[in-house]
């Protein structure tokens, strides 16, 4: 019962949204160059951001789950911070870091790697907000899987790197996949940090959520329709990944 109530709580608003969409205009809306550009950009940057989350987040989760060191709790909650930070503030923080006058931005600029107002900035913003999702869900799985199999592998002669690739990661694959999906979803929906840090230029930094927001001002119907596209993409990807995960494990 409460499970159904929970599901309804999520589904009914989506339904309400669907009911308001002018489906006859749907194709036209989707086909518009600005929508297509936004969708493509969103998919690309989210994919890259997810990859970045994996590269940065898997080691973080491993360290948090497997090592005991003083201040581990503080490090963990720091890793969670982008979750609480209002995205706009997150964007400002990124601006202060990677922006032209930011902590690292000056160095980057000197190196000839301008970040702001490029797609790289979008990826950075998305990675910043999506990283905690990967870290948290993977760390939880690592903890509950435990270290007994890793110990067995070590006594069979496997050095840590081999244990990681052949035992730990395959064992936590479901958690890794669901973490990646969460990150991807969060990156796909990212709005506040992107607009603050990366700006909004069609084809370069204007992702689908930004496009939706803009449209809402002048064409609310279009915004609703595009939201549903976002929803559909997200459903498609999560279902596909879940299938993959189920197949990988038994």
């Amino acid at each position, binding site marked *: 019962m409460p499970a159904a109530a929970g599901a309804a709580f999520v589904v009914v608003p989506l339904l309400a949204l669907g009911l308001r969409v002018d489906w006859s205009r749907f194709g036209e809306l989707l086909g518009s160059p600005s929508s297509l550009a936004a969708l493509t950009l969103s998919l690309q940057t989210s994919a890259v951001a997810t990859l970045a989350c994996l590269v940065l987040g898997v080691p973080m989760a491993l360290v948090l789950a497997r090592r005991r060191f003083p201040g581990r709790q503080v490090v963990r909650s720091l890793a969670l911070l982008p979750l609480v930070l209002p995205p706009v503030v997150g964007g400002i923080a990124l601006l202060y870091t990677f922006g032209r006058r930011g902590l690292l931005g000056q160095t980057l600029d000197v190196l000839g790697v301008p970040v702001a107002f490029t797609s790289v900035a979008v990826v950075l913003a998305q990675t910043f907000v999506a990283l905690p999702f990967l870290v948290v869900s993977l760390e939880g799985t690592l903890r509950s899987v435990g270290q007994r*199999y890793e110990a*067995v592998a070590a006594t069979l*002669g*496997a050095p840590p790197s081999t244990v990681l690739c*052949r*035992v730990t990661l395959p064992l936590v694959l479901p958690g890794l996949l669901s973490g990646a999906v969460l990150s991807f979803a969060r990156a796909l929906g990212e709005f506040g940090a992107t607009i603050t840090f990366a700006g909004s230029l069609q084809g370069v930094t204007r992702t689908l959520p930004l496009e939706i927001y803009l449209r809402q001002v002048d064409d609310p119907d279009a915004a609703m329709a595009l939201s549903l596209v976002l929803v559909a993409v997200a459903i498609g990807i999560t279902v596909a990944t879940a299938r993959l995960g189920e197949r990988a494990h038994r």
Partner: protein
Amino acid sequence: MTLACAATLAARGFDIDLEVGEGERVAVLGQNGSGKSTLLGVLAGTLRPDAGRASLDGRVLFDLGPGRRLWLPPHRRGIALLAQDPLLFPHLTVLDNVAFAPRVGGAPRADARARAERWLEEVEVLPLAGRRPHELSGGEAQRVALARALAAEPALLLLDEPMAAVDVAVAPMLRRVLRRVLAGRTTMIVTHDLLDALLLSDRLVVMEEGRVAESGPTEETLRHPRAGFTARLAGLNLIRGTRDGGGVVGRDGVRIDGTTGDAPALRDGDPAAAAFAPAEVSIYLSPPTGSPRNHLPVTITEVEPHGELVRVRGDDHHGHSIAADVTPVSVAELDLYPGRDVTFVVKAATVTIYPA
């Protein structure tokens, strides 16, 4: 020696000091909770002692104490541990579980699989090669885990009750396999079974409350147990010599017939030993004519109560002291006393002959 280990682990009341020679096979016996698994864990590197030092083949495994913090990680020790819980990797097939160590060791995939198949064949579960661990029965899983540990071909092999979950019909086969593969390989095997200790080890370590209560050559120790735990189980009669026809001929000429039972095939002239429990020995005042093949004239040296029974020790004039457990009624009826000459009779069917 090959392996030397001294270690303490206060949380488990564990404190041992142990040496094992090159190629020696050690059986570890002891009550539940006496620290057998802890010892294996410390050696394998899955458990870190509070202090101590161990070395294997000259390499230091760990050296912990005030100012010393050397700790060789498990994968660099060349020590494989088959734990009480099989812990097969759930994401790999049976074959890939066994091929794990060869693969890690650098063998090409096909090679590793071929080796894994050989080991699965050895423990007679090759038909299960394609299964996932959750599709195995308890005993099957234990056998696969054994194959996996063997496939690692480690410098030191640690086996924690490898036969516990294995059925009676399979046990002899596994014992044979272990005997063959452990030959000349430094091994430590935890067991609750005397026969395993006898067949699979050169040396016995008996643990009691985290300490080594007794340690020595297996036969010797089983024959003259000092620790309380061993004494309750053992006191076996053992005669060493060479294989000859249906029995063993001792260096001094004494001959004992028996059956080889589970043990691997032996040829005449091979070094062998015969073992039989004191309860199997009958005492006659004069040699009877009957089916029992082994008649040993002895002089009684000792008559002592032993539980419900009485243990009678006799000297066979070749320097062997042989024990017989008989009922108090027999002792009274036959009037057994130290100094009396009698015949100890043992059925060949109850004597186990094994390679020495």
